[in-house]
């Protein structure tokens, strides 16, 4: 543009302010200014993209930085002299079927506290997690001969020691220094975090209960919303006559997709709990509530997928004598299925991360054991995260972040599957 000086312009030495003076100083300045503005605008756009992506990275790094330590635990090698301890157990009782009962009555906590106090000085008992019992119990059951002598058993450290050893400071730093000097401190993988349920002590809590609750809830949601969503999409796209009822259905579905999730919680509370008297806090009710929320997502994705199947397929099937139902179930549905599945997975991922409607139907109770069925009180992963974030204990911070990592991993996996499905089966007709 700048070099294209019009030929008709006489090449005078004088500078003119005429708008067509392409080589004039004013014009050059103006063009330079315009190009600078162009560069600025472009940089602004780049900055917006980088800022957004940077925030995501910041969020993920914070969570991983806080949460990675939640998967490890500090362990203390605790020497226990069983022979000279106050343990109330007969080694013979450990071989029979009553072993669990015998050891439960063996006064183990007192024994462990005493052993910790002898090993690490006064206050040693506070360095040991209440979960030490379980470790000792397991060790004794595995080898009852331990009771005849002394043994060193690795037990989890208490919340304060755990945090201090992980570099979070606190009142127990001196204790950690002492333990380190004694060479009793080690770090191990916190398997309990993946196998236990909610608890009051951060060294004992785990996410398995919440995870199981989430899986049960999601299976109810999927079992209800997938068939209903697909059927509704098929009806609207393939069979529905153009009339007022169909319009009403379409408007309802589009509205439901935009209704805030907490409103579905109110619906669940008013209808499922107060009207139908279904059990509170159960995966059944949570799953039904989330199914109502997920169904519109599946219907909308399903309709788009069905719309993408070319009419020639339907015409061909009708032409060789298939009935309308056969056309849809033998030809249209299989071809549209990858698209429907992609939409379903995305809807399910959203439901898996959803918290607010579940709080409304009472899924915020303290549930210390994993649910056995769909009517048992249960927690779900996001609600567990919410509950732990409210805990005052500092040890819960890393547990919350660790639970978030698990939740994000699940979501990432689901979304990756959705993207894979889309890329593998996407067809250009």
């Amino acid at each position: 543009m700048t070099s294209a000086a019009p030929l008709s312009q006489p090449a005078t030495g004088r500078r003119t302010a005429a708008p067509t003076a392409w080589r004039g100083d004013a014009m050059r300045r103006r063009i330079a200014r315009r190009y600078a503005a162009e560069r600025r605008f472009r940089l602004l756009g780049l900055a917006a993209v980088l800022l957004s992506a940077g925030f995501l990275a910041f969020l993920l790094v914070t969570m991983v930085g806080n949460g990675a330590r939640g998967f490890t635990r500090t362990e203390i090698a605790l020497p226990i002299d069983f022979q000279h301890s106050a343990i109330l157990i007969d080694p013979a009782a450990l071989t029979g079927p009553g072993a669990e009962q015998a050891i439960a009555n063996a006064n183990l906590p007192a024994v462990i506290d005493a052993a910790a106090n002898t090993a690490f000085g006064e206050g040693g008992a506070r360095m040991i997690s209440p979960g030490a019992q379980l470790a000792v119990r397991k060790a004794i059951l595995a080898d009852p001969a331990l009771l005849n002598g002394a043994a060193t058993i690795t037990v989890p450290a208490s919340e304060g020691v755990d945090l201090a050893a992980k570099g979070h400071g606190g009142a127990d730093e001196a204790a950690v220094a002492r333990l380190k000097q004694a060479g009793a401190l080690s770090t191990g993988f916190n398997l309990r975090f993946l196998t236990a349920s909610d608890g009051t002590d951060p060294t004992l809590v785990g996410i398995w209960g919440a995870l199981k609750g989430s899986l049960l809830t999601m299976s109810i949601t999927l079992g209800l919303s997938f068939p209903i969503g697909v059927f509704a999409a098929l009806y609207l796209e393939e069979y529905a006559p153009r009339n007022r009822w169909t319009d009403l259905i379409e408007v309802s579905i589009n509205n439901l997709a935009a209704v805030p999730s907490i409103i579905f919680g109110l619906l669940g509370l008013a209808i499922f709990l107060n009207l139908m008297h279904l059990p509170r806090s159960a995966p059944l009710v949570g799953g039904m509530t989330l199914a109502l929320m997920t169904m519109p997502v599946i219907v909308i994705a399903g309709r788009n997928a069905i719309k993408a199947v070319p009419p020639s397929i339907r015409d061909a099937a009708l032409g060789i004598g298939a009935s309308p139902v056969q056309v849809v179930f033998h030809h249209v549905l299989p071809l549209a299925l990858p698209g429907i599945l992609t939409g379903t997975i995305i809807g399910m991922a959203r439901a898996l991360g959803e918290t607010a409607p579940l709080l409304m139907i009472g899924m915020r109770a303290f549930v210390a054991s994993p649910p056995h069925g769909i009517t048992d009180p249960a927690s779900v992963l996001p609600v567990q995260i919410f509950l732990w974030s409210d805990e005052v204990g500092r040890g819960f911070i890393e547990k919350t972040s660790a639970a978030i990592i698990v939740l994000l991993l699940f979501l990432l996996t689901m979304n990756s599957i959705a993207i894979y499905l889309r890329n593998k089966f996407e067809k250009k007709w």
Partner: protein
Amino acid sequence: MSGAMALFVVVALGAIGWIVARARATRMQAEAGRLATNSLPSQHGWYVALWTALPALVFLTIWANVTPALVLDSVLASPAAQTLPADGFTRSAILGEARALASGARSAAFNPLSTTLVEPFRAATLRYGGMGALLAVILAFAGGVYGLSRVRPAFTARNRVERLVMWALLGASLIAIITTAGIVASLLFESLRFFSMVNPLDFLLGLKWSPQSAAMGYGTKDAFGAVPLFWGTIFIGAIIAMIVAIPLGLMSAIYLTQYARPQVRKWMKPILEVLAGVPTVVYGYFAALTIAPALRHAATTLGISGASSESALAAGLVMGVMIIPFISSMADDSIAAVPQAMRDGSLAMGATTSETIRKVLIPAALPGVVGGVLLAVSRAIGETMIVVMAAGLAANLTLNPFSSVTTVTTQMVQLLTGDQEFDSAKTLAAFALGLVLFVVTLLLNIVALRVVKKYREAYE
């Protein structure tokens, strides 16, 4: 357990019915010739399977809802129940305990009376459960035999099965209407009960929100003024969040569609979309744990008064980030919908790319962008977890972004997750707030969709 067994048996009978009918129809077809039969063998199979399973399943569903009452009746008629106290509350507590004991849900009783009722409960449950299972199986057999008796060459099994399929499809799509009606009905019903206790004008225009004082019996006159809540919601969702999300979302969309190389676009677009996929509870935790303390620290360093550890700004900032992908994808769509001729015309006149974008593309795409912003606002004001965890509970009517404000959704969670007496104005207030939220988001969506649609038509 007998219910699950009966269910399994009925489904198994249905499968057997399918196999038998199909075999029979295949034989029949071989005898009569292919053209003389109306339907395929598998269609006869489906017809019989449906006749076998459906009536029995319907019966089982009804039976499962009726049995508890029948069991209770027979337990009350048993001699052990004559000693029950007449007082309704203890009576139902004992009965509930006995039921839990009988089903094995509990192992020890609190009230010794309930142990005497365990046997009658167990017996009655077994009797009615067995009766239901037996009736269901008989029904399944009867249905199967009737269905099989109709397998003839000329029988129109296909049309009948397909008619049922059509009804099922229609029924599935009616669920959406039922859900909408359920939402509207439950919100309206409970809100009307609330407004019979609290004047609607006091609710919508009152400036003081303290439902606790109403619960403690200080009257409802000054307790349910929702204006501070509405202001908090607008302040966080429609002002702070949008100040973050609109520039970032719009500029991201512009950069990615107009400037970025395809390779960059291919990678950055999904990365930005991840922002919309992160669960809101994670954002809330992030806002409460990382952003809010940092903001409070910054505010105290700058000497701003009233800085709280839960602030409107923390919640709004994080919510804005969450909204970026919505704005960005709406802007993307509406910019892409501007006809290429307008862009070419502008470029041909010598405008730079940024001048084309600012003076041609954005004005032309503005209705679409505005529609997208309205949708984003409707999403932001309905958002719950971020504000519950980061915005606080104090119903302040303030312009200071560093102070704590509360929102409609926060208060709904707060009101409904304490004690649950369903007649108190405190609990019902949550439904009134829900109704307001529902109506406002609905209106925003309708307006937004209308704006977007109108503008699309203008270019088609």
